[in-house]
């Protein structure tokens, strides 16, 4: 079994640490299993499964660091991994930015592990994929999809007495359904820690509906439009902003959070006052690891509070330089929402465009967080509160910072790719060209 219990993990880490002759030592355990099935053209294409458990040993001598990994767990192999990490540290160049390891920490206890998900096997995946394929075929459409699930754990310990343990399960399903003539395409996706919450049938129905409804799309002129971004689309752009919260980059003058003349925009109101974004490993809908790779705790952190930049992430080194507490960058986020459903938001839109998802989103300018990408798999024109007709896909050139200033309405958040994101209605969203892609 690749998932060790907290006690087993602690015992193994303590044993490895007992071999240490280094100034400082860190031991990490990562293990678990993953499984997946892939289908296309309404038939299974490939599948796979992995099982893995690795011990990573990091030895520190002064400011020299060496890391070695091993998949064997007998005493001789573990001691060999320790000696090898120490030897590698001896030969490594000094890292002037090395910071001493943290001592014991208090971590929260996110509930991210669900036995049902952990017990998923190849026939379970085949059954879920098979049922989805059956619905698609009954609709005389063509589907391609991917289901993957995992049960993993990670544990960390160091020579200063720090210890952390976390285990989690995940199940993800996504599918793209196309009409046989290639003029319509619909997409749906879901991800949960608990596979029983993953409604593959309902997701299949949504993708079928979108595939049919997106046929015979009409071309609109590129330009600035009011858009409703479904959570998947909104989340894609916001996540780029959330990955750019690093304080050092901002202090160095090369971030959207850098200030003209020096300094950062911490404390400035940068977004619409309805925008509050935080991360919280104990959030019941998107639980995540309570500690970072170097053992610092993830706690609830508000990054944007009513549009104001409230926090930036600090590496241990940069935190020391600035005299603040280290703050790891968030691994996911929760954006607070409103009370409107997506349907309510459509009803309240005089003229606009509904976007299912974005595709191939890439940065253009890190200074303004300008991104480009395209709409995909279900883009519709809204007129007088109703979806009128499908439209051809657009390329957009837009910044999440500009977008979150042009906010008109916020809906109820949904889980998408491990984050909680509401649907958003945005005015003046910039579409720069048309695409013929379906």
């Amino acid at each position, binding site marked *: 079994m690749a998932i060790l219990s907290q006690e087993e993990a602690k015992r193994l880490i303590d044993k490895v640490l007992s071999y240490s002759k280094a100034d400082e030592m860190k031991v990490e355990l990562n293990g678990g299993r993953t499984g997946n099935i892939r289908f296309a053209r309404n*038939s299974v294409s490939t599948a796979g499964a992995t099982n893995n458990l690795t011990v990573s040993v990091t030895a520190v001598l002064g400011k020299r660091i060496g890391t070695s*990994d091993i*998949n064997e767990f007998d005493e001789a192999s573990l001691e060999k991994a320790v000696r090898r990490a120490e030897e590698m540290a001896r030969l490594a160049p000094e*890292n002037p930015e090395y910071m001493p390891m943290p001592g014991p920490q208090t971590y929260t206890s996110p509930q991210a592990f669900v036995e049902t998900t952990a017990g998923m096997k190849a026939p379970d995946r085949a059954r879920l994929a098979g049922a989805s394929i059956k619905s698609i075929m009954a609709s005389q459409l063509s589907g391609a999809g991917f289901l993957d699930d995992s049960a993993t754990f990670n544990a960390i310990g160091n020579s200063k007495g720090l210890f952390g343990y976390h285990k989690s399960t995940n199940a993800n399903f996504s599918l793209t359904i196309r009409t046989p003539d290639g003029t319509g395409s619909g997409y749906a996706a879901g991800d949960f820690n608990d596979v029983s919450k993953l409604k593959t049938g309902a997701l299949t129905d949504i993708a079928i509906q979108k595939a049919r409804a997106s046929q015979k799309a009409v071309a609109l002129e590129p330009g600035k439009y009011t858009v409703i971004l479904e959570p998947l689309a909104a989340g894609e752009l916001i996540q780029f902003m959330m990955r750019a919260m690093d304080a050092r980059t901002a202090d160095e003058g090369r971030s959207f959070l850098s200030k*003209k003349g020096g300094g950062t925009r911490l404390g400035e109101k940068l977004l619409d006052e309805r925008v509050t974004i935080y991360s919280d490993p104990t959030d019941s809908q998107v639980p995540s690891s309570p500690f970072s790779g170097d053992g610092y705790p993830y706690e609830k952190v508000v990054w944007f509070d009513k549009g104001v930049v409230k926090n930036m992430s600090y590496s241990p080194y940069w935190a020391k330089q600035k005299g603040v507490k280290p703050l790891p960058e968030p691994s996911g986020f929760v954006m607070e929402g409103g009370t409107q459903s997506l349907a309510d938001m459509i009803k309240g839109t005089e003229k606009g465009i509904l976007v299912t998802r974005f595709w191939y989103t890439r*940065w253009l300018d890190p200074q303004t967080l300008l991104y480009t990408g395209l709409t995909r798999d279900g883009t519709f024109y809204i007129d007088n509160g109703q979806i009128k007709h499908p439209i051809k896909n657009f390329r957009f050139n837009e910044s999440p910072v500009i977008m979150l200033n042009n906010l008109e309405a916020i809906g109820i958040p949904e889980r998408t790719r491990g984050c909680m994101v509401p649907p958003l209605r945005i005015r003046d969203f910039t579409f720069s060209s048309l695409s013929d892609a379906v």
Partner: protein
Amino acid sequence: MKRRDFVKLSGLGLGATMLPAGLIAGNRISAEELLNPGLDVTVKKRLADVALNASKSKGATYADVRIGRYLRQYLFTRENKVQNIVNSESYGIGIRVIANGTWGFASTNTMTPESIAECAVMAVDMAKANAEIQREPVVLAPQKGVGEKTWKTPIKKNAFEIPVKEKIDLLMDVNGAALKNGASFVTSNLFFVNEQKYFASTDGSYIDQDVHRMWPTFTVSAVNRQTGRFKSRDALSAPIGMGYEYLSDNPAEKIVIPNGPTVYRYAYNMIEDATAAALQAKEKLSAKSVPAGKYDMILDPSNLGLTIHESVGHPLELDRVLGYEANLAGTSFATMEKLQSKNFQYGSKIVNLVADKIQPNTMGLVGYDDEGVPCKKWDLVRNGILVNFQATRDQVHLLGETESQGCSFAESWDSVQFQRMPNVSLQPSEGKYSINDMIRDTEKGIYILGRGSSSIDQQRYNFQFSGQLFYEIKEGKIVGMLDDVAYQSNTQEFWNSCARICDKDDYRLFGTFFDGKGQPGQASAVSHGCPTTRFNGVNVINTGRKI
């Protein structure tokens, strides 16, 4: 996914701490251990036979085995600091079988005969379980066994034999040169990969291959605190299928553009390029913001390579054309009907694009693909007409062909092989024609170098590319630097606007080290060759914004 993460990493000039875990797959080891020889070929054959026999005895009608040892050395620095040195080894066996007309795959890193036999049984069981929902039984193009073969990338200097200290000294010199010339910040990296791959199949092939590639790169940033503006310039190097010899100074492998930059062919002077990059990053801070409109675009191979990759390489992957990648990468505008019509004008008449897995110095160069097919070269677009796709053994019959083109690849022993792009390259023009000739012949144009932002739709029609360096051309001369440039076009329109291609003396390689595809995502490395090329009347947008 992996590439996307990486692009983010390099684009923002961030350090090794942000490196996605997937890029350092395997166990971290010492630099010396990278030179261990690994298993003897006779042992590999014996273990492979265990897997093949176990698969057959459980009812597989076909099986192949890949015993892989993947060695990587990555070095990361910023300014005067070494941030990280990663030496890693990933070692194990992947077994792929066909049972009941369905693929099954399993892998293990426990290299005992018992574990391997067990793994083979798992693969067969998975194939049988999935056969229940199989509607298109696998049809495998015949491939005669090639017997026992060995193949090795023809490198001159194995990068793993060069002491780490020498590499760090080089990167410190690179960073020092950038800082001395006015850079505010600089990160520099070296990536070295050696794939030791042993393939065996029930067809009777036992192939031992030793594949090498490397990538030296950096990002130089210039910050103006007063204006709050910052600009960066990435290296103009190419990831390449060469040994450490690529990192040398050879005037014969250098082209100096009057009033413009210096570009490199098969020898790259990293310090010289970093020096130029610092000066150019500073110049970008005050460069003229481009007026949007139509321009004749002169694209250097360091820029056009990515456009070839995205607008030719990917759309001509047969699995995409057929819908196997519809859920992530997408499908393709280049449909089977367009191929069969034999008159689909992909590009102008001067456009000849080849797929080539036997081209020297490229990252796609191997002796055999990951299903034991000997590698070859074939036309994709001939005189502007679409003439072929890229395929694997289980899909090539859909093209009406009986022999695979050899496009199967898996990123590791623990991932299942599938169709991956071979080197796809634009052929040079026949007569003599240099970059200087091309600049001289251009009235109103923009000359772009380097890999920048890129985005293309899921059927590969609409694309937008940026770059690292943009020069304005007026009446046959480079007149200054531009900024905020991105070109937008439609694949067919773009390739049909191809007006002039330089000659073979200007032919250079571009490469992508972490090209992502598939679910779960897998990275592959591939090269694209071309000379500098001009495309007339391309739409340019201005990407400048204020927040």
